[in-house]
Structures are given as structure tokens and as C-alpha cells.
């Protein structure tokens, strides 16, 4: 099933098409939510809410736009809503302070890890910067594409991405310096 068939099927409320959509885009939405929120359970809730909203509002989808960008816009907004509701950043930063292994490297150092998490370094970025970094690194999105998801200008998206890349680089270098000195 290609994207258009999936969309047509979902508009007819076909369970097969709905399943195909989740299979095609489920991990993408979950990874974005996970990278923005930093918490697996909340990210799964966001993922579920995103797809339910997509199934309900698919008739409003503008075919001129990229479906993936539209889907990710919903996922991003849902993630922001979740962050506002939960305010779990304090827990996230607390874990970063007491679990150096989480700080030092990426979220899934063990391939067999059943629940990979993003690095705690990302917690130093704003949700917009995290989203921009995630879309750029994982999906190869340009500033223009990121602007479509964040609903801002390409210039603004470029600034979010630049800030994210600069902050992370500085943090990695600081981290590296600490490891060498300590």
C-alpha cells in the first residue's frame, strides 16, 4: 500500500489502511515524541493521540502539503501539550545528574535495550530546538521542512537548528574535557 492508498483507505475508515498507516509511520511519530519528551510512556501516549487525531481529522489534510510533515506537525503539537501537562523535566534533569552513563553518550548504547531513550544532553535544549535537531538528523529535513512542522518561518527554524547544534557540540566538548581531566 502506498501513501495515497493508505490515506484513501483511512478516509473510508478501513481498519486495514489504519493499521498500514501505523505500521508505516508509527515508529517515526514515536521517535519524534520520544526525542521531544524524553519519556517513553508519555511518548507512547502522544503517539496514540496523534494517530487518533489523524484518523478523525484526515478529511482536513491538505493534499498539497506533505503528509509526513502534516503528521509530524500534529505529533509535535501533541508533544508540546504533553510537556505542558506533565512538566516532567525536573525528573529528567534529576536523572541526568545522578546517572552519568546517560549523560555521556547516546540513548541506546546497547542495541538490545528494549526501551531506548534520547541522551539527557537533549534536555538542555528547548522543545523546538530538540524537534529541529531530531528532524534534521533523523529525517534529513532542511530548515524549510522543519519550518513546516514547527509552523514558523524557515529563518526561525534555521536559528533553532543552529542553536541546537551549537549547544550540543559545546556540551559534548565540555563532557569530553571532563572525562579527559577527571
Amino acid at each position, binding site marked *: 500500500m502506498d501513501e495515497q492508498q493508505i490515506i484513501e483507505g483511512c478516509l473510508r475508515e478501513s*481498519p486495514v489502511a*489504519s*493499521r498500514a498507516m*501505523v*505500521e508505516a509511520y*508509527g*515508529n*517515526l511519530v*514515536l*521517535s519524534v515524541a*520520544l*526525542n521531544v519528551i524524553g519519556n517513553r510512556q508519555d511518548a*507512547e501516549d502522544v*503517539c*496514540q493521540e496523534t*494517530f*487518533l487525531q489523524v*484518523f*478523525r481529522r484526515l478529511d482536513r489534510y491538505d493534499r498539497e502539503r506533505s503528509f509526513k510533515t502534516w503528521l509530524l506537525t500534529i505529533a509535535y503539537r501533541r508533544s508540546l501539550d504533553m510537556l505542558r501537562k506533565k512538566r516532567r523535566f525536573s525528573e529528567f534533569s534529576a536523572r541526568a545528574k545522578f546517572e552519568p552513563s546517560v549523560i555521556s*553518550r*547516546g*540513548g*541506546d548504547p546497547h*542495541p538490545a535495550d*528494549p526501551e*531506548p*531513550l*534520547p*541522551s539527557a*544532553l*537533549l534536555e538542555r535544549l528547548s522543545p523546538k530546538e530538540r524537534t529541529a*535537531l*531530531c528532524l*534534521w*538528523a*533523523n529525517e534529513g529535513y532542511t530548515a524549510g521542512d522543519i519550518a513546516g512542522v514547527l509552523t514558523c*518561518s*524557515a*529563518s*526561525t527554524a*534555521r*536559528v533553532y537548528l*543552529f542553536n*541546537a*547544534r*551549537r549547544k*550540543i*557540540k*559545546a556540551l*559534548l566538548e565540555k563532557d569530553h574535557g571532563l572525562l579527559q581531566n577527571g
Partner: protein
Amino acid sequence: MAFCRTAEFLYDALPLRSVRGWLIRGHMERCPGCQARLVGPEEARDLLVRPGRLGDPEALWRRISVETERAAAAPEPAPARAGLAWRLAAGVAMAAVVAVTGFWLLREVERPGFDAMAVAPADRFEIDYVNVGGEPAQTFVYQPQGTDTVFIWATKTP
């Protein structure tokens, strides 16, 4: 190198997104020195959760299908009714506050004994006469107890 430092200084000194976007597009995206101070895509991917590492989305589908069936069985919620009710309630509350405040102010002003003659003048406050339309006006001065606020109410003499 000097230009890189200038660009970076301007970037930090001017927190305007349009200026920053222009600096990035005009210099930082093209300059290898500036690019070296940014995390690369590979390094960034190591810090992020990648879709390919999340396994089979079967469990996700099971969750979503249960919710989809539940949503289909439930009646459609009435759209925007709640919002309308809240707006109505806020409007009524605001009108009530305005009415009570207005009533209290009018009652205080119109109370006998609150004219200029009856109320002791506030410290360093003097009013010799008030004209309305070129004629001496009927003037009331009101100072609430325990405050330094003075209200002057002047109407044309009938």
C-alpha cells in the same frame, strides 16, 4: 577567522531571529570553521532515538485500535459547547463585577454628608472653586477612610 568571530559576536549580541537567520545563511552555513563548532548529523543521531531502533509497531497498533474502536462506539462530543459555556460564564461574571462596583461607587458618592463642606480636606489638598461651563459648579469631595485618595465630583449647578 576574524569575520567568524564578528559573526558569532553579532549572533550572540543581537537576539533577533531575522538577523540570526541572515548570519547563519550568509556565513555560518558556508564557513568550515563555523561548521566545525556545530554537532554533525552522525553525532546528533547517536544522541537521539532513531525510528529504526524502536522495533515492531505492532504493540502500538494494538493500543491505537482499541482506542479507535472505543471512540467509534462513543457518541460524538458536542463541539465547542464547553467553550461557549465558559465564555458566557466569564461574560456574566464580568458584568456582575462591573455592576456591583458601579452601584457601590454611585451609592457612596450620592450619600448625604459627602459634599465638600462635610468632608475634611485631605492634607495639602485645597480646592477654591470649580467652574463648569463658566459657572460655579456644585462640587463634592470624597476621601475614603484610611486612604489618601480624593475623588472630586462636579456637576453644573441647577
